[in-house]
């Protein structure tokens, strides 16, 4: 993390809406994003599982729902997360992509996060701080590719 990315993170954290409780059996994307924005890189286990679900929504369903069910039934009628929450999710993914930029990503999980961040930026033209997030993603991408196992 640099002073610039810390600043982007702080700005995006300030934009996050107050999170309402999700319906029974549902998980609130906003709650996951708010909780993770104050943290660093997720540890393997439940912390990563939450982020994997963000990746899965962005990568597989090509959208971030406001709430999603733990059993992962797709719901095309479900409301989408607010753009501020999508920006928050993108920021969380870029924070978790950090190890890939230094070649400290033995299982590829951080590169996976970067992949989802790139897609989230591409999928959402109205993202708050989109230019800043994209600059961060591009910088991470260049470093991650240069430090990937395939490049060594």
């Amino acid at each position, binding site marked *: 993390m640099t002073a610039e990315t810390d600043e982007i993170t702080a700005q995006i954290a300030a934009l996050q809406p107050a999170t309402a409780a999700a319906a029974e059996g549902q998980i609130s994307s906003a709650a996951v994003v708010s909780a993770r924005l104050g943290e660093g890189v997720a540890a393997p286990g439940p912390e990563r599982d939450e982020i994997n679900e963000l990746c899965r929504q962005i990568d597989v369903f090509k959208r971030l729902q406001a709430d999603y069910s733990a059993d992962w039934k797709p719901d095309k009628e479900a409301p989408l997360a607010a753009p501020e929450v999508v920006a928050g999710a993108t920021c969380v993914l870029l924070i978790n992509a950090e190890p890939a930029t230094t070649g400290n990503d033995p299982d590829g999980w951080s590169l996976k996060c970067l992949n*989802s961040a790139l897609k989230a930026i591409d999928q959402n033209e109205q993202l708050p701080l989109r230019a800043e997030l994209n600059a961060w993603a591009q910088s991470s991408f260049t470093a991650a590719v240069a430090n990937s196992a395939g490049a060594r």
Partner: protein
Amino acid sequence: MSRQIPLTVLAWEGPQARAYLVRMKRAGITPERIILMIKDPRNSPLAKVTGRGLAKAEKAQERAHNFHPHRTRASNPQLMAAITNGLAGQLEDPAGLISEIFDSFSYDDFGAPVERVAVSGYRDPALREAIAASGAELLLFSGGGIMPAEILELPGLRVIHVHTGFLPDVRGADVLLWSLMVRGRPGVSAFLMTPRLDDGDLLGATELPPLAIPLAAADRPDDDTLYRSLFSFIDPLIRAEFVISQVLEPASDFAALPATAQDLNVGVTFHFMAPQLRSAALAQLFPTA
């Protein structure tokens, strides 16, 4: 001398099913049957196309599903030469295998009865009925993704899937490219399918030597062509080589193929690559010579 094994090949027309059959023939292995799925143009579970209509649908499917490999072979000879040179480090005679897969191929040439089934897809009840009626106990899946539970739950049926990632570490989609970027080399695994993604018991898994297919800048096609060539030639041949040489050829008791449970607490499930990352991965697979 050919050895018949108690295996049914579930053929979803395309390079993968063909690669399995061609490589089996090279190994002197004959499957007990082939079930060839033919996309039913009526797309109805009630009124299936039959007779000449089915033959016509099979021809149309053959052209459609093999369009990109045929076009790549015709229009990119330098790419084809580079691919066969690159694969020569992984398997024997890739050029000959590719020729057998696409030149004068017929499902009827493998010494096994071929049952042609008109289906709308894997969830079509006609497919489940055909597999059940065949009495197959061991099926080799040649499609991608997951198989419906209704088929996997048929009594006594086990379904083999081959995946171009080293399991349990590399699950999901685009795994050959992810493997190259993350682990610096391709991997391949064979497992018994479950209704979930890539989590079945392992019949075998290995990491392969690093794979690079250098291309002169002037011979380099666009990324879409390179990506299609991956799934037209490279991925099918790697899968076929592994499952036949490491799982089927050594097996003596097919009713008791040794399988070990995966550690589901490790590994990453990858998704399709964003175009930018895919381009970087393709640049690593196809470096400029």
